[in-house]
């Protein structure tokens, strides 16, 4: 289904927009897709167990400015990335553990934790005075290899970030399909009590899944830093809804238990092609957002409707 939509969109773009196929276009699109794709790993896993992670954009932004602040403070870039991604994972773990204890209210938990984290990181970054933060932006010296990682350079042909995404796609799909942990997520999304009877720990699974989500969000923040070249707290804002949109458009239900990351990858590609087409028509970012919103409902209405109560008696 999602595949057909993707092919239709590509066909439409190829026929209606000049230069659609140019290599540059494809390369830069793949870089954008890999940012969204990596951030969507966590959202997909959360959706599979019936949760939703709204903290992704906040963790992403916090990692983005946090890493600049760490490097400005003299921390080596490699260690900085490890710290930032690790903290992202810890925040995610807290989200998952708390959401699970609070009867699965992940929407509000992650919204609250996300705001608290980004607010706190901005307060911390703006202290110290090494290089202050203004309007949410923080400047710093970004090492060249971080920049090159997220941009397509001529010697390599394709951005390393894209290769990282491809590797993560393989890992995620293999884990979901072939490991006990992956299968247990489907069980948990399908019937929580029955999952407990076959010794799937709901609390542990939620904690791990949200930790993955936090870590992938932080990783996206790092990659985006390489792409833009300066820290910006609001860099994650579009990812709040695009990650959810990619999951939904791919065909993973938010109720849990049905779908997978392969579908979300299709969702990410559909969104990316769509944005290319819309940009081809010279539509502003805001107008693109509006059109994306219009598209969510029909796609969801196609395959994410809940059954009528009459079928559940």
């Amino acid at each position, binding site marked *: 289904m999602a595949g057909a939509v993707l092919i239709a969109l590509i066909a439409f773009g190829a026929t209606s927009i000049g230069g659609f196929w140019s290599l540059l276009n494809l390369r830069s699109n793949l870089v954008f897709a890999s940012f969204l794709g990596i951030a969507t790993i966590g959202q997909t896993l959360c959706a599979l167990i019936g949760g939703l992670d709204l903290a992704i954009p906040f963790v992403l932004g916090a990692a983005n400015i946090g890493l600049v602040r760490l490097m400005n403070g003299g921390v080596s870039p490699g260690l900085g990335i490890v710290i930032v991604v690790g903290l992202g994972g810890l925040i995610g773990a807290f989200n998952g553990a708390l959401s699970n204890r609070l*009867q699965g209210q992940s929407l509000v*938990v992650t919204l*609250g934790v996300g705001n608290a984290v980004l607010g706190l990181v901005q307060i911390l970054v703006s202290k110290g005075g090494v290089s202050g933060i203004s309007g949410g932006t923080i400047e710093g010296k970004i090492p060249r290899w971080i920049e090159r990682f997220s941009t397509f350079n001529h010697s390599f042909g394709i951005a390393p970030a894209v290769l990282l995404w491809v590797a993560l796609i393989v890992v995620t799909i293999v884990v979901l399909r072939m490991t006990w942990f992956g299968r247990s997520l489907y069980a948990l999304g399908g019937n929580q*009590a029955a999952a407990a009877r076959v010794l799937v720990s709901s609390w542990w699974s939620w904690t791990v899944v949200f930790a993955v989500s936090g870590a992938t969000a932080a990783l996206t923040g790092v990659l985006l830093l390489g792409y833009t070249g300066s820290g910006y707290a609001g860099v994650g804002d579009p990812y709040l809804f695009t990650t959810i949109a990619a999951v939904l458009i791919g065909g993973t239900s938010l109720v849990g238990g049905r779908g997978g990351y392969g579908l979300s990858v299709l969702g990410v590609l559909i969104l990316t092609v769509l944005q290319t087409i819309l940009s081809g028509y010279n539509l502003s970012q*805001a107008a693109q*957002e509006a059109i994306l*919103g219009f598209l969510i*409902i029909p796609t*969801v209405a196609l395959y994410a409707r809940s059954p009528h109560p009459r079928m559940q008696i």
Partner: protein
Amino acid sequence: MPGTERAPTYFLARQRSLVTPLILLCVLLVISAWHGPHLFTSDGLAGAVIGAAPLVLATLGITVIAVAGPAGVDLSVGPVMTFINIVIVLGLPLVGVSSPVLVFVAAIIVGVLLQVAMGTLIACLRVSTVVVTLAVYLVLDGLNTVILPEPGGTAPDWLASWGAASSILSPILYVPVAAFVLWTLITASTFFRNIRLMGANDRTAFVSGVALIPTRIGAHVIAGIFVGIASVMYSGLIGSADPTAGASYTLSAVTALVIGGASLAGGRAKGLGSVIGAIDIWLISYVLSTFNFGLNASYWVEFATGAVLVAALFAGGILSGLSPRAWRHQGGLAGPTP
């Protein structure tokens, strides 16, 4: 006759969700009295009322959606308010409408229409509330910026003067009080009882003969009325049109809803709780503004709002003994209750 007298214990048990917002209110009022006593002057109170009123009314609006459940979180409320704000400030003068009554009527009509559109999609297509309101959030947030790229325009004079009110004995108090009276009347109605029972268990409501589609759309009509009134107050507060405020308003309203003790599983939410929750949110930013954070003030507000939301969830969980009640109907716990 047994069972016919109202047992006060059940009445008290039902008020338990008000404990968290009330404790928070008291704490914030004490801090205000100590650090920002300006609040308790005539000026300060008027500022408080006009400052908190839009959020209070918006939270009441999304409370109905939470009651209609399940997982009835209306994410669209911020951009919807911004949209109506733009309509009031830029749209209505174009057609020559500026009298108070007509502005209120127009705002309520736009609010109701938007909410009915969402309610129809949710009820007829059976798509989850979060997804539909998320889509509308994106549409309106984008549209608002397309219509009005930069903040601008001025509200009608009578409305702009509300933002600078110096006494609470003015429309800025009368409107919210009238709205709350309306709320009380609505919640006492048969129709609202049907919304509540549908939110608690839509299958039970369906087989018992409750017409689900009109009931759900009706819940959105009520929400639209309150969001419309909220938008008028909001326009008065800022005196102009601002396309960018949507996201933060959604966060504030949802936070206020949760602090107010609403259960997102559906069927359980109290208007009074939402009102107190919204006042709490406003007081948090007021209290923080009395500290000298300078440029960092907005970060502190963001941090405090998020932290209070998490703390309220914690407190709510502890007060209800971390009862897995809402979890159970999803199959979280099996076996009969003792």
